[in-house]
């Protein structure tokens, strides 16, 4: 099959529907997050490892896994995961972001990452070819997250792991509250946003955050039970959530089955996420194994 590959990024994307195109235009305008001018691999790793989750997922994925990241943006996670003998495919809708990723990969001298421009509904990737399908902060920006999930699950081999991060309905409440104020004040006043406070001195990063969190054209929020129902409908065995949905369980091995999966406890845990996750976007990660 022939395809175009300008800048070494194959274009496998078919024209999408109106809402998908809108999201694409949204990101095409401002690729995010950017790389500093002389970023190094150690910088990237240092930055990624500020998040406990990144460290855990890196530890959980075997050294010879084939990984696809759906919605990789500028590819920071893809590049972070591209160690040992892993092979990583980073897929995104937006060429402008991917270009940054390709540049960085070249600079870091990583040849085991391939970026492709594509749409998750028609990824143009071989079904069942990947040990790990990773997609964080993407599905909730698609018009139909449930359908989007079904289409990315197919990429995982039977027994492969599916790692999905979406906004949590509970943990996003604080942000939604702030958004009401923000909209009323036409984004002039956004109260108590810890990320904005952190980035006070960096107006461009502030603007990027506001754009992404407060002005996104397409956004859905989900509960753990909802994601679990996606899993069940697609023959994906639920393993665990991050943060853990089991009260008092420390996440160590992300690919191990959680000690329990008790729905009441899951709801309690989600209410508990309002605190720690509510600070930022309220993204939680659910991990499953394709059966």
């Amino acid at each position: 099959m022939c395809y175009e590959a300008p800048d070494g990024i194959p274009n496998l994307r078919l024209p999408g529907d109106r809402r998908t195109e809108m999201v694409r235009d949204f990101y095409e305008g401002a690729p995010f997050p950017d790389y500093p001018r002389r970023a190094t691999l150690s910088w990237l790793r240092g930055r990624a490892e500020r998040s406990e989750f990144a460290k855990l997922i890196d530890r959980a994925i075997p050294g010879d896994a084939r990984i696809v990241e759906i919605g990789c943006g500028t590819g920071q996670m893809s590049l972070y995961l591209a160690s040992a003998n892993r092979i990583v495919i980073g897929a995104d809708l937006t060429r402008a972001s991917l270009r940054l990723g390709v540049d960085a990969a070249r600079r870091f001298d990583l040849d085991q990452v391939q970026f492709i421009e594509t749409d998750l509904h028609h990824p143009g990737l071989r079904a069942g070819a990947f040990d790990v399908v990773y997609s964080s902060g993407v599905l909730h920006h698609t018009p139909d997250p449930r359908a989007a999930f079904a289409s990315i699950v197919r990429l995982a081999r039977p027994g492969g792991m599916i790692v999905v991060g979406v906004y949590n309905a509970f943990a996003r409440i604080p942000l939604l509250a702030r958004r009401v104020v923000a909209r009323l004040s036409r984004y002039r006043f956004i109260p108590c946003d810890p990320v904005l406070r952190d980035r006070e001195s960096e107006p461009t990063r502030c603007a990027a955050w506001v754009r992404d969190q407060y002005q996104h054209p397409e956004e859905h929020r989900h509960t753990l039970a909802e994601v679990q129902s996606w899993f069940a409908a697609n023959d994906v065995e639920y393993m665990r959530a991050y943060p853990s949905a089991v009260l008092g369980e420390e996440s160590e091995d992300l690919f191990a089955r959680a000690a329990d999966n008790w729905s009441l406890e899951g709801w309690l845990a989600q209410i508990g996420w309002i605190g720690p996750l509510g600070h930022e976007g309220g993204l939680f990660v659910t991990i499953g194994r394709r059966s």
Partner: protein
Amino acid sequence: MNILGISAHYHDSAAALIADGVPVCAVQEERLSRHKGDAGFPLLAIETCLQQAGIEREALDAVVFYERPMLKFDRVLTCTLRAFPESWRTFPKAMKNLLGEKAWMRGIISSHLGVPARKVLFTEHHQSHAATAFLTAPTRRAAIMTADAVGEWATFSVGEGERGSNGTTKIRRFREIRFPHSLGMLYSTFTAYLGFKVNEDEYKVMGLAGYGQPTLVEQVRKLIRRTPDGAFALDLDYFEFHTTAERSYSLRFVELFGPPRNPYEPIDLDTAEGQRFADCAASVQRVLEDTLVDLAQTLHQETGLTDLCLGGGVALNGVANVRLLAESGFERIFVPPAPGDAGCAIGAALYCDRIHFGNPDRDLPDHPFWGPSVDGSELARIAQEDGHHIEKLSENVLIDQIAGDLAAGRIVGWMEGALEFGPRALGHRSILTAPHTTKMRDRLNREIKYREPFRPFAPVVPVEAAERYFDIPPGGTRLARFMSGVFPVRPEWKPQLQAITHVDGTARVQVLEPGMAPRLHALLEAYGRRTGIPVLLNTSFNLAGEPIVNRAVEGYSTFLRSKIDILVAGGTRVTKRTSAMDKTEAGRMKEEVA
């Protein structure tokens, strides 16, 4: 007589067991719990010690903790009072921390180990450092200098140690400098200012210093002035570590040196900003060296001794150690393999044995290998289960084959015998590669260690060949035994030793005597026979942010998670199932994208 030494609760916990005057086992908790810099009560380490000695808890004659908790409480309380009212936020935290747990070490140790409280003893923090430095060093009589961030009150002390002809041992400390005046704190403050992790990444400052010029020495001297009696004192206006826990430098410090580095931005040495940070590092390094040299000169004149034992975290600064050797007047300098707080576990136990119980002095084995041993057959079993290619080879064949692998440019994970005690991998848990090209250095950085590009890798060389490749002054061989010194690479060899030569033309070389690690020595010789240069790059066997591996399984999982080509434990050699087809596989995947 069985004596257990414990160091815990600040950073890097450890336990050490002395039986009949000789260490049986010493191990850092992080190596067992697998949490880097684990500061918790070292239960696992204690357990390992008891197991290795084959004794029960009841057989312990004493358990020695490496500092005096109540003296520490006094210091924290006094400093909080002095900083009133700025310290109001730290006060509840500090009190909960100390009074909730750390002040009651006697009870905690006795409750964990079930030994009676009277068997729990304490040595002073710097006394433990001094004991680690002197009692593990092969010298009869030596001056002792210890320097770190802070123990109870002392931050710096000088003294002397003596082994009498009748087997008695004496350690006498003359005088000390007290908190908040501290060389370690000065260096740590710059570590934080330069965006690195305090108590962990001080060596990065040293590495960065090689890229800068000491142009800011005058400014640094404003922070630390010499007192008329020859000691030093910090100008506290520039610091905040004594009042808050959040930040160690003050606004005035920032006024003097400019804005601090954002820890998450890479250092770009080509920009003025990046160069400024390198110059800062070079300047504080220079001031540290100058101060240490001056203090050591005074000590030398005062004692008239030829040997100096260095202890405390500052003794990890290899550049300073070499300047001490060159300029202080001492002929030999001894730095233990674990001069930091973890090493105090051994020091406290030895001090208790030699001085408290007055047991006769004994010569100690002069090596750092006091941890659990690695089992080659365990590796063979698990690697076989996963279908990797394993070979069990006899000694000579293995050495020869590994030398061949190294010569072919492969990266080797090397595990043998007992685990090192202390922060450095000295040949029992190492990643070894050929040291010749910058390409190899970059490959290691990119695929395994993810280090900042300005941090050098260290070489290991057999003692017979050391002089040929490195410019090692008299007495330097001793420092290089445990990688405690940084020495110039001989200019004619620099092109062949690119991967281990720092930008300033030096290397933190380990000079290996055959007796210390015979197999590694044999490997170096075999490698020398093949390539003509018996030098290997030796870096600790761990991935970034993880503690050094201990057991075969940990080495094995590290091997699988990185691009180490070959793993050796004991007589077992493992190669990866997929390593050969790695590239083609990637190519195929890319094709399939279509």
